[in-house]
């Protein structure tokens, strides 16, 4: 049978995408990755909005990544209007972003990816196949949400994070409660890393594309992009370096770099650019299929970082403070940040009334599209001759290794 086959609905991913497989006789000879989520046209929706409405609307791009979208938008707005936030606000935002990292990674590991390794269809299957791991995962996920809710007022679309500050600063006892909960899962995270390291891998070892991540700030924050090949790109030049192109087969813009280069962003990229010594042996230059382990290692990192941010905040002493007063002005700002799935950029320009005149948002899954498609092509080549259904299943697993967030990608 020749022609094309499709994975019509990619499942256990956020949003709507598909994989098209080109067949010649019994062989699969090519693969294409397509995102057909409907564009909500966020960049157009934001034009004409006041500076304080922009982060509120922009965070609605995605639920899983809403905290990090909110923080990126706030930073870009504040840069454009020359607003300086307090150290306390900065630390609280970092803590919220680490909470988002914990929630998102736990969701991927326990609900979306783990079923692939245990031969079940989803979390309901895990309730039978691995009830303890599921319970553990849900506990970790809940803690990520609790962190986001404590700082942002809500786990999804955090309203308490405002331009210039917070609506209400959390109380010390609320942060202490988070610290206690984080301490309580420390051993669970070690157990989890051992559990994930021991899972059998059925995907062939595909080469890792070039890697890129945000650098130059606190963990997950920064002001530049770096690559493993030594390229350094400032925030102001990042959008042109990421070179988004519109292509007919996908609704998300695709980053096309110089020549044939393909860059991957996300957990494996971040770890390869700043590898913790104890994980180097397992993860340095590891194939794309190691992303589950990479996410697990990052989950532990995020929990540790959240703990140390809380210690800093508590030793500084929390104080109620109002958001800084703002006078609207002309300006432009670009923020770079690491979302759970990788590099995220928000860039805005405002007129003298503080009304948005231009918006540009570049998300990790849109950057990763080319890497996903290249990896899919490598996979079908590596599996040449294998049964069609097996190729199809493996393609879907491979896509999940990138944990795509398609609402983000298309926005």
């Amino acid at each position, binding site marked *: 049978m020749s022609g094309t086959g499709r994975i019509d609905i990619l*499942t256990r991913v956020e949003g709507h995408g598909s994989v098209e497989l080109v067949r010649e006789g019994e062989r699969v000879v090519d693969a294409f990755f*397509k995102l057909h989520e409907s564009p909500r046209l966020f960049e157009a929706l934001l034009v004409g909005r006041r500076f304080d409405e922009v982060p509120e609307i922009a965070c609605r791009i995605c639920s*899983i990544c809403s905290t990090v979208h909110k923080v990126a938008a706030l930073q870009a707005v504040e840069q454009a209007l020359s607003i300086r936030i307090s150290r306390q606000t900065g630390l609280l935002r970092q803590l919220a972003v680490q909470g988002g990292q914990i929630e998102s990674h736990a969701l991927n590991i326990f*609900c979306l990816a783990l079923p692939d390794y245990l031969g079940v269809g989803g979390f309901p299957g895990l309730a039978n196949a691995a009830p303890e791991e599921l319970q553990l995962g*849900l506990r970790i996920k809940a803690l990520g949400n609790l962190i986001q809710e404590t700082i942002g007022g809500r786990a999804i*679309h955090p309203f*308490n994070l405002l331009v210039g500050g917070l*609506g209400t600063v959390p109380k010390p006892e609320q942060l202490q409660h988070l610290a206690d909960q984080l301490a309580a899962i420390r051993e669970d995270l070690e157990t989890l890393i051992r559990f994930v390291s021991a899972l059998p891998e059925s995907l062939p070892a595909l080469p890792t594309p070039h890697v890129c991540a945000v650098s130059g700030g606190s963990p997950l924050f920064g002001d530049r992009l770096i690559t493993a090949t030594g390229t350094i790109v400032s925030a102001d030049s990042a959008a042109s370096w990421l070179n988004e192109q519109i292509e007919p087969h996908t609704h998300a813009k695709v980053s096309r770099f110089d020549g044939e280069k393909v860059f991957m962003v996300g957990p494996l990229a971040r770890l390869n650019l700043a590898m913790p010594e104890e994980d180097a042996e397992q993860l340095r230059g590891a194939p794309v299929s190691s992303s589950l382990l990479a996410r697990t290692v990052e989950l532990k990192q995020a929990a540790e970082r959240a703990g140390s941010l809380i210690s800093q905040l508590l030793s500084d002493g929390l104080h109620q403070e109002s958001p800084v007063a703002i006078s609207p002005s002309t300006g432009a700002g670009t923020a770079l940040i690491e979302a759970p799935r990788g590099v995220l950029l928000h860039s805005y320009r405002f007129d003298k009334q503080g009304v948005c005149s231009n918006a540009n948002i570049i998300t990790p899954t849109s950057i990763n599209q080319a890497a996903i498609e290249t990896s899919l092509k490598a996979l079908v080549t590596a599996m040449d001759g294998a049964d069609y259904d097996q190729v199809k299943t493996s393609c879907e697993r491979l896509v999940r290794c990138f944990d795509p967030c398609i609402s983000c990608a298309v926005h």
Partner: protein
Amino acid sequence: MKKLRFAIAGLTACSGCQLSLLNCEAELPHLLEAVEFHFFPMACSPAILEGEYDATLVEGCLSMPHEQQLLIALRQSSRYLIAVGSCAAWGGVAALKNGEDRQLLRQQVYGSSRIASETFAPQPLHAAVTVDAVISGCPPEKEELLKLIAGLLRGTVPIPISYPVCNECRMRENLCLLTERSMLCLGLLTLGGCDARCPSLGVPCEGCRGPAPETNLGEALEIYLQKGYETGIVCERLRHFCPEWKP
């Protein structure tokens, strides 16, 4: 008790309503004792539409022809179809500029390039099908989803609330952000059910749950005017999540 067959579908949206369900971490394992997910692409494989569903929860607005087809197919095979979240209920944030030329909006993002499929101005679910219940909010509260499922397990849906956020804010004895601090808080006109989540932290209600049926609209607009907010500004803010809202 026989387990209920559920379908959970997402149309044009951020997946936040589906994530709200997955955020019921403490309840999920218990939920599995009462409910089977037969079509839930975001969380379960494979996603095959077949058979009848006791209830279908739909997140998101309609903005593509194939979404309309999916929604109609789900309606035809579901005893209850519930619109979950403000996009499904009202069109939501994606419908923010429905009054403007969609071609121009598309050009602002995609230039003159054509993108793959046909899309149209975002619409709420009731534009295409009968909806048996609505849980609004961006996102909805987890407790509302659990209450809904509890109702469905007993063969019904919860009675919709009709009072505004303001009532719940009073119950929490919060300082009024509108009258005491002159902030543009939309709690007077916005549907309750969130326990005044935002004003309780000193952040004005942004109207994410859409209009409340039981309000004293004339009086409310008068108070906004006294505080320096023209009716046009108030309505414009309310339309962030409910583009068709007209006072």
